[in-house]
């Protein structure tokens, strides 16, 4: 019956129906996941590197996390073409800001600018979930998360993308201490104060678990760590500080170098 495109009898019932519209769908979903966690004087922003469409892996290495300034890193997830082009436009705006003001844009200003840019396409949205991480003017670590049309808030942590539903509950428990009770008489939990080493292992566990249970997550992982000025790097650099198989690299400063430092940690994830 494949020879006949239409069911033979189908049209007999609806001869006057309007033609089927084969409307062009301008969106796609390219899978993958991102997350960010803020510390007191650092921020960690991570994403996997798989890009897929349906059951096809398009590439095992596509970037989802981007260094914007010495203090800001942006992760994008959703429709990759929108994500790439959005980041490109953000970088453009940052360059013009620097032309005009002779200094890089601050983190919270970048966050507000991103909301404006996303809402600017409210009626043909960028199908992208953004998470912005970095260091505020006051030296504190920060995470901002956005929906595709620009709603945003500052948080202690956020996961987004294909494995959001796997990772976010884990972070709620580990970062926000949901469903945990402090020991009687001890200090109450305060989210956003975990040491860097703990945060890093949470990030790694999030992605390795998501890789196990979600087909769109895997291949590789990129973790950006932004540190406030003059912060110690003893808990990151040196023998035995990183898990096996991790490679670390310091990214050179982009601006006048006010002391913030950004590191990039890469690790392989399972490819199946």
């Amino acid at each position, binding site marked *: 019956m494949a*020879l*006949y*495109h*239409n069911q*033979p*009898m*189908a*049209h*007999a019932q*609806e*001869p*006057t*129906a*309007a*033609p*089927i*519209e*084969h*409307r*062009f769908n*301008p*969106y*796609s979903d*390219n899978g993958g996941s991102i997350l960010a966690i803020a510390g007191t004087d650092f921020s960690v922003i991570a994403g996997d590197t798989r*890009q897929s*469409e349906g059951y*096809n892996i*398009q*590439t*095992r*290495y*596509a970037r989802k996390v981007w260094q914007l300034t010495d203090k800001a890193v942006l992760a994008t997830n959703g*429709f*990759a*073409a929108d994500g*790439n*082009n959005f980041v490109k436009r953000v970088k453009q705006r940052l360059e013009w800001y620097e032309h005009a003001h002779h200094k890089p844009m601050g983190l919270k200003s970048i966050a507000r600018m991103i909301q404006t840019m996303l809402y600017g396409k409210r009626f*043909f949205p960028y199908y992208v979930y953004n998470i912005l991480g970095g260091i505020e003017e006051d030296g504190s670590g920060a995470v901002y998360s956005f929906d595709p049309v620009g709603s945003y808030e500052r948080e202690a942590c956020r996961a987004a993308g294909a494995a959001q539903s796997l990772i976010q509950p884990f972070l709620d428990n580990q970062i926000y201490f949901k469903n945990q009770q402090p020991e009687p008489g001890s200090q109450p939990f305060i989210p956003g104060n975990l040491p860097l080493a703990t945060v890093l292992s949470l990030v790694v566990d999030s992605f390795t678990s998501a890789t196990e249970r979600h087909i769109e997550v895997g291949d590789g992982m990129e973790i950006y760590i932004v540190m406030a000025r003059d912060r110690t790097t003893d808990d990151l650099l040196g023998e035995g500080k990183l898990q096996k198989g991790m490679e670390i690299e310091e990214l050179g400063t982009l601006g006048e170098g006010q002391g913030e430092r950004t590191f990039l940690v890469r690790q392989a994830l399972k*490819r199946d």
Partner: protein
Amino acid sequence: MMSQHPATWGQPTPANSSFNQFNTFPLPQTQRGQSSHAHHGPVGHTQQPLVTGTSVLGLKYDGGVMIAADNLASYGSLARFRDIQRLHPLGQHTLLGVAGDMSDFQWLKKELDALLREEDALALTDSHPSLSPKNIYELLSNLFYARRSKMNPVWNAVLVGGWDKVKKESFLAYVDLLGTTYTAPTLATGFGAHLAQPLLREAYEAKAGIDGNGPLLTKEEAEKVLEDCMKVLFYRDARSLNKYQIATITSEGVDISDSKSADTYWKFAEGLRGYGAQTQ
């Protein structure tokens, strides 16, 4: 038109079919002559591909990159044009392999050729090197994304293969009608993504390893893998043709092979019920 189907013989053909009755060519989707309720709302740029090319394959090897595509341009299920070249060189060190709508491809060729001529003219005065494969790919990505954002897509999936003269390394990347972009050592569009990509990856990783740090395939090995893949595609992709070309891009430049065919084996078909002539 009159319906030819046994169940509806003699009745008028339905207004909502998008292919003709024998599934050989797509019917035009213009709204002319439709009742007024059929088109309300703004007029869109909605289109569909008409004359199409199927898979394009790409593979990096030691010293360059290879791109393969067959010579068929289909009109629906009709094998309409059987001597179409879908590999197009741009300058000295770049080549496009194009799947999807062939008229969009021809338009694309015209635009890019014009741009490159302009670039060559400028180079006459400042001797600045022409656009690299990366530059052309970036332009193409912007073009495809801009057109999809206008809801007027360029209906193609394109592989860009090239040789970067400055970095002295091969270049291979993908871009399609959505503006989706990616790069990998082996690439395939359309059916090829399902049928050929696993074979290409297997062959590539067998030598280079999963991190790509080992030795790459030799020219001969790469050609063999691509020929195998083209054969598999011919066996299983009904919109393919056993007549294809392979382009090789190296530091020496672009070389596009003559059309060739894979040796195929159909003897088994005789033994299959429902395939060859029916004896019972």
